[in-house]
């Protein structure tokens, strides 16, 4: 057995790692997996960068940021596997949510209207709204900026973005330190269950296939341990498929509920798994298909174009200076080559390409693949704008027109 340590944060989307350890998928591949729980992304990053763990549960944009040196000293990170797509929600205080459509289902089903309502509510609120994000380089923060930007809101000027650890969001909302937050589950469900907030938007309705957490390793570790990495990716592939299967959701929710993992009630954790979300306290759960996806529709495949979308958003919000080197380094973080190598011959469908136009699919599409049959899921952004990785400046110009 090869010992392997992976750092994670207590979130529902750490599920494939937890299932890999607890349901024997890692062991079947000869890996003795230990999971190390941390409380901040900074610590997860430091453990990974300084070699205390071999891999980490990581925000996809943070993996790109660490590679580019935007977050401490630069360190080349490889993300050969996406742990999930989607899974976020925007929760607002009841006071701020009162300015939105009173029909809760319409509110989340129509993010365009809700974005405009939110923009109109900003000036009427008793202060500039303070919105909690979990990290500057989080998928959620980029998604929130995208949604606000659509309605002409400048997220660096018209609202205050405040970084807080996900587990402290509900407390900050209760105390009125923030007026809302965007975070991964179970934290929106916890805030709703406690009656201190209402879900105003769900990630899947902003970007149908939002890139979320990745498995991150140091590039030098990935290159010097190819066999171990392949074993790990095969174990995670099976664990992710297991997590997606509704038959396993009760078991998985109970596993995640353990105090050494997420430590929140199983019935709250199960909402995101099942895609049945309570938007207000005591509210009838609303069906949100694909609210959180672990495996279906090639969710684990790290498309280089998705890393480039992240880079395009860094450019859009002046987080990085444009350069061909930074662009190439960003695309290189998502290691579709390593995913292919590990899962060749496993029966998992492997896309023929490593890059695609993101957000172009309105209906499921059968795609060219090397093995198995592959159906790509709808992946549109809510504003309908496709991202062509070949023309980042052109894409950024279309976003400016909002």
């Amino acid at each position, binding site marked *: 057995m090869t010992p392997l340590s992976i750092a994670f944060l207590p979130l529902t989307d750490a599920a494939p790692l937890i299932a890999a350890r607890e349901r024997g998928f890692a062991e079947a591949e000869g890996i003795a997996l230990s999971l190390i729980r*941390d*409380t*901040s*992304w*900074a*610590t997860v990053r*430091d*453990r990974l960068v*300084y*070699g*205390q763990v071999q891999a980490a549960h990581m925000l996809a944009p943070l993996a790109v940021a660490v590679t580019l040196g935007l*977050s*401490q*000293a630069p360190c080349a990170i490889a993300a050969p596997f996406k742990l999930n797509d989607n899974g976020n929600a925007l929760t607002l205080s009841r006071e701020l949510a009162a300015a939105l459509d009173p029909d809760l289902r319409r509110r989340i089903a129509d993010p365009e209207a809700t974005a405009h309502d939110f923009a109109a509510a900003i000036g009427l609120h008793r202060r500039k709204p303070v919105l909690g994000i*979990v*990290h*500057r380089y989080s998928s959620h923060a980029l998604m929130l900026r995208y949604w606000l930007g659509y309605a002409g809101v400048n997220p660096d000027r018209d609202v205050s973005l*405040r*970084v*807080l*650890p996900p*587990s*402290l969001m509900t407390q900050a909302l209760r105390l009125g330190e923030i007026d809302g937050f965007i975070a991964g589950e179970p934290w929106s469900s916890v805030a709703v269950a406690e009656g201190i907030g209402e879900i105003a938007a769900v990630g899947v309705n902003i970007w149908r296939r939002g890139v979320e957490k990745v498995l991150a390793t140091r590039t030098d570790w990935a290159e010097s341990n190819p066999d171990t990495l392949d074993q790990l990716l095969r174990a995670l592939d099976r664990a992710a498929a297991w997590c997606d299967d509704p038959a396993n959701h009760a078991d998985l929710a109970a596993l995640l509920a353990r105090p050494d993992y997420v430590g929140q009630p199983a019935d709250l954790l199960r909402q995101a798994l099942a895609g049945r979300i309570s938007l207000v306290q005591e509210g009838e759960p609303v069906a949100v298909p694909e609210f959180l996806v672990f495996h279906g529709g090639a969710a684990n495949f790290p498309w280089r174009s998705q890393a480039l979308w992240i880079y395009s958003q860094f450019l859009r919000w002046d987080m990085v200076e444009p350069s061909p080197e930074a662009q190439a380094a960003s695309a290189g973080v998502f290691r579709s080559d390593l995913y292919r190598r590990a899962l060749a011959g496993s029966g998992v469908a492997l896309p023929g390409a490593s890059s695609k136009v993101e957000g172009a699919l309105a209906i499921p599409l059968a795609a060219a693949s090397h093995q198995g049959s592959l159906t790509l899921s709808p992946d549109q952004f809510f504003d309908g704008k496709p991202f062509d990785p070949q023309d980042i400046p052109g894409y950024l110009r279309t976003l400016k027109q909002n």
Partner: protein
Amino acid sequence: MRIAIIDDSGLRATILEEGLREAGFEEIDVVPPHGAFVARLERMAPDVVLMNLGNANRDSLEEMLAVSRALARPIAMFVDQSDESMIGAAIDAGVSAYVVDGLRKDRVKPVLELAIRRFNAFSKLQGELDAARTELAERKTVDRAKAILMQSRGLSEPEAYALLRTTAMRQGRRIAEVADALITAADLLGDGR
């Protein structure tokens, strides 16, 4: 050199601050990570910020350092990225350090070494406190189990203790565990008091 310690554990901060003062550092400020703590950091303009690695507010601090001018120049974790053994020791001890870029390595290294030693000393002290607390709780459990045996089986105190001990030895368990099981059983049977 100005040093800021961000910590909400009174004991750990005190242990660290004392160590730094003994080593001749004078400009030290302990800042709890609540409210407007970055504004305080900005005013004191530290050269080094020390923080517990397990503190959930590290992401908040890094964000504030990124957007404010709390530290004059870009900051770096640790002193010298090539000094892997020291970085490993710091992470093991649970110290994170933010150092103003450009500060000389020979000036920062003693601070970090001292912080590592002091964090380790704190962990050891905390371990001892926890052990003492467990021991006290276990002694209370054993006393209660002895009382139950004395009452229900008419044993003397040494006999009750001997019975607990031989049972524990036979079952390969600790005396406190056997005592705990006995108390639970007695509670269930309704004669635990």
